[in-house]
């Protein structure tokens, strides 16, 4: 039964007669609308509104052509009628419905999507400063104004939109991309090699190239010099990177003792009321797991009431040891991440890993042959291949 029919109320009637078609024609002439018609051996069964059901019953009495019997009554009007003697219960139900309806006009949940580097807490704080907080009337949310305010308060954003659905506000943001470096063009700077390598390609847009394809260069050597104007171009080279990472194999391992305590509470808007506590407060270091669930209606509207559950699990730090293979896998991943950060758009042609253990510390070295862009403006500092972890 749909919500509309439930709110209006429905009556299932059985019309008993020799010619049910006549009864239906009479009903149609009286303006009676019905649905879910079923032909039975004795006549027909149909569902109609309480008003039309009364009209049908009167018609049956008046004409004597058919008899009508009520099979079932469903919906809110009948529910309230059944509660007429239980006034307190009816009043409570009516009050609950009223509060439920009213709660839909207030914001009870704020969610932010689309942020990658800007913390959600910062965005929620900015929203609060813009006046968007739980308990606020949905009609008081100036979506355009809040979007613009959010962009003004958080410069790292390039776009923001505020959506209100039921009692939920969800904000979709896009972060700004950093502006590219502007070339002044007035200083006749040169392009130098960022690292040692063998040149595989050179493109000069402005200035004069001092090396050719196949030449070996050392870090810091000038590749393209400016001739009266700023040097511009691209120089790719085959380079070698040697990176090392280390990790102690002995560590403190977290182990749960089994000590646990649980606390349950209720959420009313911003208020948390704790109602039960099970177990004893574990004496040691604890992991605290907090879970909040707001009641959500089938349509997606969030209510300001919910359940709060906190669990403490006692844990002790015990001496442990990271398995060699696991540690090596972690260090390899770190090395590849560092290499990818160094290369940028460059590519790896060959990579070799070596691992060794010394004084309970695992070392992993990556040697990679790469092809990458090595030209950089002279003003910047060159950086050398690092090898700060001795093998």
């Amino acid at each position, binding site marked *: 039964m749909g919500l509309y029919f439930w709110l209006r109320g429905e009556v299932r009637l059985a019309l008993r007669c020799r010619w049910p078609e006549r009864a239906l024609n009479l*009903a*149609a002439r009286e303006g009676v*609308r*019905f649905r879910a018609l079923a*032909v039975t051996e004795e006549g027909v069964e149909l569902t109609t509104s309480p008003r039309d059901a009364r009209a049908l019953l009167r018609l049956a009495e008046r004409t004597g052509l058919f008899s009508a019997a009520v099979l079932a009554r469903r919906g809110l009007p009948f529910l309230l009628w059944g509660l007429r003697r239980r006034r307190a219960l009816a009043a409570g139900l009516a009050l609950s419905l009223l509060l439920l309806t009213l709660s839909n006009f207030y914001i009870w949940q704020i969610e932010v999507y689309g942020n990658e580097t800007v913390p959600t807490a910062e965005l929620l704080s900015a929203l609060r400063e813009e006046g968007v907080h739980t308990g606020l009337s949905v009609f008081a949310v100036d979506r355009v104004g809040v979007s613009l305010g959010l962009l003004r308060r958080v410069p790292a954003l390039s776009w923001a939109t505020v959506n209100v659905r039921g009692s939920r506000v969800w904000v979709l943001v896009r972060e700004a991309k950093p502006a590219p470096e502007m070339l002044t063009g007035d200083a006749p700077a040169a392009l130098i090699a960022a690292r040692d390598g063998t040149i595989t390609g050179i493109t000069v847009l402005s200035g004069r190239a001092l090396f050719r394809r196949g030449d070996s260069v050392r870090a810091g050597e000038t590749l393209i010099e400016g001739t009266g104007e700023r040097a511009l171009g691209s120089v790719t080279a085959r380079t070698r990177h040697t990176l090392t990472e280390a990790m102690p194999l002995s560590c403190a391992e977290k182990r749960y003792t089994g000590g646990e305590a649980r606390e349950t509470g209720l959420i009313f808007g911003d208020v948390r009321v704790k109602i039960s506590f099970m177990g004893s407060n574990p004496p040691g270091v604890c992991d605290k797991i907090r879970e909040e669930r707001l009641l959500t209606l089938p349509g997606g509207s969030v209510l300001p009431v919910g359940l709060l559950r906190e669990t403490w699990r006692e844990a002790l730090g015990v001496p442990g040891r990271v398995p060699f293979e696991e540690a090596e896998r972690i260090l390899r991943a770190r090395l590849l991440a560092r290499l990818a950060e160094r290369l940028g758009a460059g590519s790896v042609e060959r990579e070799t890993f070596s691992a060794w253990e010394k004084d309970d510390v695992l070392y992993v070295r990556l040697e990679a042959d790469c092809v990458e862009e090595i030209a950089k403006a002279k003003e910047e500092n060159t950086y050398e291949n690092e090898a700060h972890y001795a093998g």
Partner: protein
Amino acid sequence: MRDAVLESAAGVSVITLTGRGHVRVENHRGLVRCTPEEVAVNLGRVLLRLRGRALALIDLAEAELVVGGEITALEFME
């Protein structure tokens, strides 16, 4: 469309068949028979007989009625 409006205004029955599962009859003169296998509608001078499977009267008003189900035949009887 214009013709349909004119016919409707003149009291002529308008029958709209949508696929095989939906028939709307406007300006009818009453339901004559209604079973899951057969629905008969009085159109004045003729009788419209719909035959099929699981036929059901979806809506019945003074001016129009709607029948749903799997319709296999539609015939007019003088």
